[in-house]
């Protein structure tokens, strides 16, 4: 049979077995079809098993294999100063860990990782061995390693070395504003300062996303599982330049006077914004506390540690007197020649004695007896009320942790001489921040402000607490003038006067009470609180040095120079216009330390009067010295420029108020300008 030109023989056809077998072929076909059907059924059954019955389990296995849960980092909120300079930032860092149960050779592994991570290989091997013996599947090798170390470890491509991204808090300025910022622990939880009190806002909450990966664990797609909440950035009211100057000058002051510690605050008196807050000794928040380290250097003394303020408190006494009595700055006050007998107690003036002083001179010379006399005129109830009104006895509310409210005894617990003690700043304890608040009342015209440290949370400005009026404006202005007198003629003469600016303040020196011996020691809390310029204060500064000794450790000698240095820097930084000619005609001689104030108090009548121990020369009445100086010319009708030129030519310090033509002047033309005074000229158009 020819097929396509090829002939197939019957024998070949037989071999092909294509003939005579239809029934068998059909049967086999049936079997094959049946087998195929069975095969299909089996596949179908398997599919049902996979896709329906065991769907959940297999889907879970698939997810485990294909999905990767990736953490979305949420760093802790940074902290900036008021000009946007970072004070604290969190930076992601790698931490390395191993599963000791999967480490093939612990000896080699510890040598390898120890060399790269600068760890003791033996110690690491022991740790891994311990974890292995206790069937622990996780062991930190080293946390927060450097970028270089991480890259070097990754280049080994060892699957049992694993990494986790953590966050490391950095304080790039080191010790700057350490007590304000505080610090964090290893898990970035705040353990001091604002890091602690605002931990809730600062802390970020990491989120996660499910990432679909390929066989090489490369991400293909991702789905948000938990949203990340980054910490809120905080902008502080602190100005890092003023803060730096404050810390530098405070450290100089403490070391120069061999004080135990010190604190300083710079505050805007109008809104309570704290421009600088520093303590000494201080610490570096980048370094965690070491075992056995003295915790004292981490105390925020300005906020948490109250002390007897001493004579700076006389500002409160005189303010209360101006408000509640008919006493005026020129009212005479009998100072009893330096000795005042009280029930069970004799008060001596710390240095010399005065006969009759005006109220202004009581503050200038910081007469204890004069302050007590004024306090008696005010009365206990009024004194207590005004002490409370000035914010003493309750926390100032700056938002820092462990803020002390100081100690003010209730009126019913006052003793027979408590009014006298309180009048000169004893039997009360205050913190520096409370003193700053009280000083702000004088500087801003009689309003009690709440100290403020947070300028912005995120991009939102934080609200300022409304100020509360506690003094009449005229009282505050009068107090400003009295405090200026302290700088010009009083205990701070030559120590707190600023070049080109007017300033006012009050010195204070309080003996430190020894609770063991129940005696006052010869160590002092030397303080100064002041402001500048006088007419429109840009800031107030409170300086306290604790544990000074000797006359140089009094407030005027120890704290006032710190005020002067910091105020000079702050005025420059804040670009405050000068209100005096820059070059002083001559250097003023500083008041001798003997004339510095020193307020002494004791615990009560049963206790020895430490006052008696103070060497105090019983001088006579200090009559006001006859004033001598240049006569003031008539500036009226002249322009600002002409007045400035004439005053400069005569070497007269000048205070220019307004613009245009000179309309009035103090002192009047022809009057003698007392030393340290300046001529105020009011201009108008």
């Amino acid at each position, binding site marked *: 049979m020819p097929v*396509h*030109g*090829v*002939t*197939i*023989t019957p*024998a*070949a056809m037989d*071999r*092909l*077995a*294509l003939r005579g077998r239809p029934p068998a072929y059909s049967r086999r076909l049936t079997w094959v079809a049946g087998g195929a059907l069975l095969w299909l059924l089996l596949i179908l059954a398997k599919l049902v098993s996979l896709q329906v019955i065991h769907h959940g389990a297999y889907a879970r296995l698939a997810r485990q294999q294909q999905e990767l849960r990736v953490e979305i*980092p949420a*760093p802790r909120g940074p902290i900036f100063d008021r000009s946007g*300079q*970072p004070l604290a*930032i*969190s*930076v*992601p860092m790698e931490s390395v860990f191993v599963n000791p149960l999967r480490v093939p050779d612990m000896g080699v592994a510890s040598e390898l990782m120890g060399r790269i991570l600068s760890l003791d290989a033996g110690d690491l091997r022991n740790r891994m061995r311990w974890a292995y013996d206790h069937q622990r599947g996780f062991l930190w090798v080293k946390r927060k390693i450097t*970028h270089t170390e991480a890259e070097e470890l990754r280049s080994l491509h060892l699957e049992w070395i694993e990494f986790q991204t953590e966050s490391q808090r*950095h304080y*790039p*300025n*080191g010790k*700057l504003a350490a007590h304000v910022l505080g610090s964090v622990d290893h898990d970035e939880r705040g353990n001091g300062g604002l890091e602690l009190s605002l931990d809730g806002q600062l802390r970020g909450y990491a989120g996660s996303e499910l*990432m*679909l990966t390929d066989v090489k664990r*490369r*991400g*293909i*797609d*991702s789905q948000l599982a938990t949203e990340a909440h980054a910490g809120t950035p905080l902008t502080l009211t602190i100005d*890092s*330049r003023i*803060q*730096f100057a404050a810390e*530098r000058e405070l450290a100089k002051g403490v070391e120069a006077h061999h004080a135990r510690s010190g604190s300083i605050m710079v505050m805007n008196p109008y809104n309570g914004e704290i421009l600088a807050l520093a303590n000494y000794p201080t610490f570096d928040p980048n370094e965690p506390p070491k075992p056995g380290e003295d915790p004292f250097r981490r105390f925020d003394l300005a906020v948490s540690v109250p002390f007897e303020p001493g004579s700076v408190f006389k500002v409160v006494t005189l303010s209360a007197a101006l408000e509640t009595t008919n006493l005026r700055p020129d009212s005479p006050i009998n100072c009893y020649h330096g000795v005042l007998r009280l029930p069970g107690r004799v008060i001596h003036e710390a240095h010399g004695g005065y006969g009759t002083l005006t109220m202004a001179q009581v503050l200038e010379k910081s007469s204890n007896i004069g302050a007590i006399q004024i306090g008696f005129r005010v009365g206990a109830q009024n004194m207590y009320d005004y002490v409370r009104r000035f914010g003493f006895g309750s926390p100032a509310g700056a938002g820092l942790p462990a803020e002390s409210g100081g100690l003010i005894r209730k009126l019913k617990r006052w003793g027979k001489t408590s009014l006298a003690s309180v009048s000169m700043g004893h039997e009360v304890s205050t913190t520096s921040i409370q003193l700053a608040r009280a000083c702000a009342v004088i500087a801003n015209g009689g309003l009690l402000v709440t100290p403020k440290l947070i300028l912005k949370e995120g991009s939102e400005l934080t609200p300022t607490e409304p100020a509360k009026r506690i003094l009449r404006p005229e009282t505050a202005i009068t107090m400003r003038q009295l405090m200026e007198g302290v700088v010009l003629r009083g205990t701070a003469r030559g120590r707190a006067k600023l*070049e*080109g600016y007017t300033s006012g303040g009050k010195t204070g020196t309080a003996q430190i009470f020894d609770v063991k011996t129940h005696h006052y020691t010869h160590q002092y809390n030397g303080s100064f609180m002041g402001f500048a310029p006088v007419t429109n204060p840009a800031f107030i500064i409170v300086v306290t040095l604790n544990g000074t000794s000797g006359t140089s450790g009094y407030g005027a000698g120890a704290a006032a120079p710190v005020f002067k240095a910091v105020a000079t820097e702050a005025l420059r930084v804040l670009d405050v216009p000068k209100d005096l000619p*820059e*070059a*002083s005609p001559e250097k003023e001689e500083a008041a001798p330390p003997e004339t510095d104030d020193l307020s002494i108090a004791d615990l009560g009548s049963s206790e020895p009067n430490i006052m008696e121990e103070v060497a105090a020369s019983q001088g006579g009445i200090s009559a006001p010295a006859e004033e001598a100086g240049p006569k003031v010319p008539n500036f009226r009708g002249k322009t600002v*420029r002409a007045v400035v030129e004439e005053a400069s030519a005569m070497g007269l310090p000048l205070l220019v108020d307004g613009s245009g033509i000179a309309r009035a002047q103090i002192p009047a033309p022809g009057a003698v300008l007392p030393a340290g005074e300046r001529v105020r000229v009011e201009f108008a158009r």
Partner: protein
Amino acid sequence: MATLATYFRRDEAVIYSEEASTVAAPRPAAQPADPYRLRALPNENVYFFSKSIDNSRLQKQKDPRAAKECWSAIGAFAALAMLLAAALAPSVGGTFAGYQLQALKQERQRLVDERSRLEVDEAALISPGRLERLARAQRLLEPAPGQVVHLEPHADGSLAMNLHK
């Protein structure tokens, strides 16, 4: 074309071709196959049957209808393939975009981390303490009182040289 049959049963193919040639020219009786030889597979003579075909004498006749059907089939398959490609393209594109997106996300995170590190470095470089050390090293001093002169503007707004007027 080499098939499995021609590969495995080359010897039989030779025999068949020889048998076919005997039709034209008879030869002496061929050597009988070994009856005791075991077959490798049942019916292997069917499944492994191969024959040589000589198509040299065939002439391909043009069949426009078949050609048209063929082209129609090709077109249909091409269209189907394009539709399939179009249907799959978004998914494939999405996958590739996903790779790119994840890579970019990682890059972004790396850059954010890097920026944080650089901010720390920058802040340390411009910290007041360091600047003061540098200023001291370069003997930069604060101006003495009277050294700074504040110029008062003229009526025309000029500031310079007014000290000499």
